[in-house]
C-alpha cells in the first residue's frame, strides 16, 4: 500500500478500478440510488412544494405512528438479548463438540432454509388456538382453556426466536470453537476456575463475534414485518415500524411519508448498532482491566 507520493495512479490501480466497476455500479444502482432517493422523497411531502420536514414532524406528533418505535424496540431488544444469550450458552458449552453434532446442526439450519412464511404456518399449526400444543394440554386435562400464544406479542417473539436462534447459534459456535482449546487449558493450569476462564479469557476473545451477533440479530428483529403480521396483531400490540411504513406506502399510497418512516427506522437501527459497538468496547476493556498495564 505504500506508494511514493507521485500522485500518479499506476496501471494496477486502473485495473483494480476496472474490476471493481461492475460491483460498484451494482451497489450504486441498487442500493445507494434508491437509498438517497428515499431520503430525498421523505423530505418532499405530497402536499408541500419543495423541501419540508413535515413527514418527520407528522410521524413524531402522531401517537399512532410514533408508538410503533416503542413497540419495535420492545420486540427487538428482548428478542436480541434472548437469542444471543441462549445461543452463547449453547455454543459455549458445545465448543468441544457434542454427540450427533451434525444431525443437530442440520435440524437447526432447517428453519433458516424454510423461510418465514412456512415457519409462521408451522407455528400457527402447533402453538395456535386449536394447535397441537393446546389440544394436547386440554386433552391431558392440564389446562381447561388453551393458551393464547399466537396473534399477540408472544407469537411474534416465538417466530423471531425460531428464525434467528439457529443462525446466531451457528455463527457463535463457529466463532467459539475456532478459539484454540489450549488457551483455556493454560488458563486453568494458571489457577483460573471455569467461570474465571470464561470471564477473563474466553469472553474477551468471543466479544468481537458476540458484537456481530448482537448487531445482526438486532437489525433483523428491528425490521420484522412478516412475523409481526402473521403471528401478531398487526394493527395493535405488534404494529411495528415496518408495518407503519408499509401501510403508508401501500394502503395510503403516500410514498414520501413511507420513505420518512423508513429513514427513521434506519436511524434507530444505526443507533442500536452504535450502542452495541460502545458496549463492546466497554466490555473488552472491563474484562482485561487490571490484567495488563495499559
Amino acid at each position: 500500500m505504500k506508494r511514493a507520493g507521485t500522485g500518479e495512479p499506476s496501471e494496477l490501480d486502473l485495473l483494480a478500478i476496472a474490476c471493481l466497476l461492475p460491483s460498484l455500479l451494482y451497489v450504486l444502482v441498487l442500493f445507494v440510488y434508491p437509498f438517497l432517493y428515499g431520503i430525498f422523497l421523505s423530505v418532499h411531502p405530497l402536499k408541500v412544494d419543495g423541501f419540508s420536514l413535515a413527514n418527520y414532524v407528522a410521524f413524531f406528533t402522531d401517537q399512532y405512528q410514533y408508538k410503533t418505535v416503542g413497540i419495535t424496540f420492545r420486540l427487538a431488544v428482548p428478542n436480541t438479548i434472548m437469542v444471543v444469550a441462549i445461543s452463547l450458552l449453547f455454543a459455549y458449552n458445545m465448543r468441544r463438540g457434542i454427540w450427533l453434532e451434525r444431525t443437530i446442526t442440520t435440524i437447526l439450519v432447517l428453519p433458516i432454509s424454510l423461510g418465514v412464511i412456512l415457519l409462521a404456518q408451522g407455528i400457527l399449526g402447533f402453538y395456535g388456538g386449536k394447535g397441537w400444543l393446546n389440544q394436547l394440554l386440554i386433552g391431558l386435562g392440564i389446562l381447561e382453556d388453551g393458551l393464547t400464544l399466537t396473534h399477540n406479542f408472544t407469537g411474534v417473539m416465538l417466530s423471531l426466536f425460531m428464525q434467528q436462534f439457529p443462525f446466531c447459534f451457528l455463527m457463535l459456535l463457529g466463532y467459539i470453537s475456532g478459539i484454540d482449546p489450549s488457551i483455556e487449558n493454560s488458563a486453568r493450569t494458571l489457577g483460573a476456575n471455569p467461570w474465571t476462564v470464561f470471564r477473563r479469557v474466553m469472553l474477551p476473545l468471543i466479544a468481537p463475534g458476540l458484537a456481530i451477533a448482537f448487531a445482526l440479530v438486532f437489525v433483523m428483529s428491528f425490521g420484522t414485518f412478516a412475523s409481526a403480521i402473521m403471528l401478531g396483531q398487526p394493527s395493535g400490540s405488534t404494529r411495528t415500524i415496518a408495518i407503519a411504513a408499509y401501510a403508508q406506502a401501500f394502503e395510503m399510497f403516500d410514498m414520501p411519508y413511507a420513505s420518512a418512516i423508513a429513514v427513521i427506522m434506519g436511524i434507530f437501527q444505526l443507533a442500536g448498532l452504535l450502542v452495541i459497538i460502545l458496549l463492546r468496547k466497554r466490555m473488552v476493556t472491563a474484562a482485561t482491566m487490571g490484567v495488563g498495564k495499559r
Partner: protein
Amino acid sequence: MKETIDSLQFRITKRFGTKTVLRDFALEIRGKQFVTFLGPSGCGKSTALNIIAGLIPATDGEVSIDGERIDRVPPEKRGFGMVFQNYALFPHMTVFGNIAFGLQLQRRPAEEVRRRVQEMLELVQLPGFEDRYPGQLSGGQQQRIAIARALVLHPRLMLLDEPLSNLDAKLRIEMRAEIKRLHTSLGLTSIYVTHDQVEALSLSDWVVVMKDGVLIQAGPPQEIHDQPVNVFVADFMGFRNFFPARVTALGAERAVEAAANGMTLRGRTRHTFTPGASAVAAIRPDDVLIGGDAGSPNAVPGTVDIVEYLGREDEVIVRLESGDRLWVRTGARLTPGESVRVILPPDRVIFLPAEESGGTA
C-alpha cells in the same frame, strides 16, 4: 507457595469410546527429576500429560502426589505449570498481563506482581517486553513468555507438551538448553513430552518410551540409548539396521553369536536367549566401520549402492553379499559400485527378541 514434591505416582487407563489410548500406564516420578515421555504421535503421551494436569479425566486409575490422591482435584488447584506446543498465550493481554495472570488470580499485591513478572522476564532473557502483545513476538519469544508465565507461580511440577515442536531447528537447540538450565537452576520437577529422541536424551534423567498407550521401556537416557528392549525402541533410538537371525551360541557377559542370512554375527544382549531362538540383530549406521581385516569378527563384504552427502559425513547404503542393505555413516569418501568390507563391531551389535511385543523393562 514454593512447594516441592517428593514423588508423583500414577497408574492410568484412558479410553475414548472403544479406543484405548492409555493402558495401565504407571510410573513413579521423584522430586527434581526431569522425565520425558517419548513416543510417536498417537502413543498417548500427551493424553497422559493432560490427565496428570487434570485437564482430561482418566477412565480408570489414580494419580497421587506424596501419597495423596489428586485425581479429583481440578487443574487450577493442582499447582502445576504447563507449557503448550502452540504457546497458548492470551492474545488479548500484554506480556505483562500474561505473566501476571496467575499472580493476580492469587490476589498478590501489585508491587509483588510487578517485581515477580520483572524477575521472570529477566530469567527468560526478555526484559523490557512487558507492553508487547503476543502477536508482536516471534515463536521463540512467545514460548519463553509461556514458560515464564508458568514458572512465575513456582509450580511444584512443570508439564511441557512438545514445547519446541513449532520452532525451527536452530532455535530448538537453543531453547532446549534454556529449558535444561531453568530446570536445574530452579530445582524443578518436570515432565516433558516429545517425539524427538534427541530432545529426550539430552534433557532427561529418565526416559519413558511409549507405544500405543503402553509403557515399553523406562530408564536413564544411556540405558535407553544403548540397551533398547525391543525393535521398536531400537528403531526410535536410531538403530537403522535390523537383521533377522537365529541364535547359535551364547557366551559369557551376555555375548551372543547368531546366523543371519549367511553371515555369522556376534554381539551382546540384555535378553535371555536359548540357542536356536530367533532374534533380531541391530546396529546404528554410525557404529559400522569401513575397511579392516577380513579375519576380524563380523566382517562382511559388500558393494556401495547409494551415497548421500551430509557434510562432515556421508550416508551410505551398502549392499551386502547376503543381499541385505546396510546403512552406514562414514567419513570415508566412497563411490557407488565400489567393493568394500564393513565391520559390525561386536560390542555395537545388539540382539533383540524377534517378536515386536517382546519384553518390557
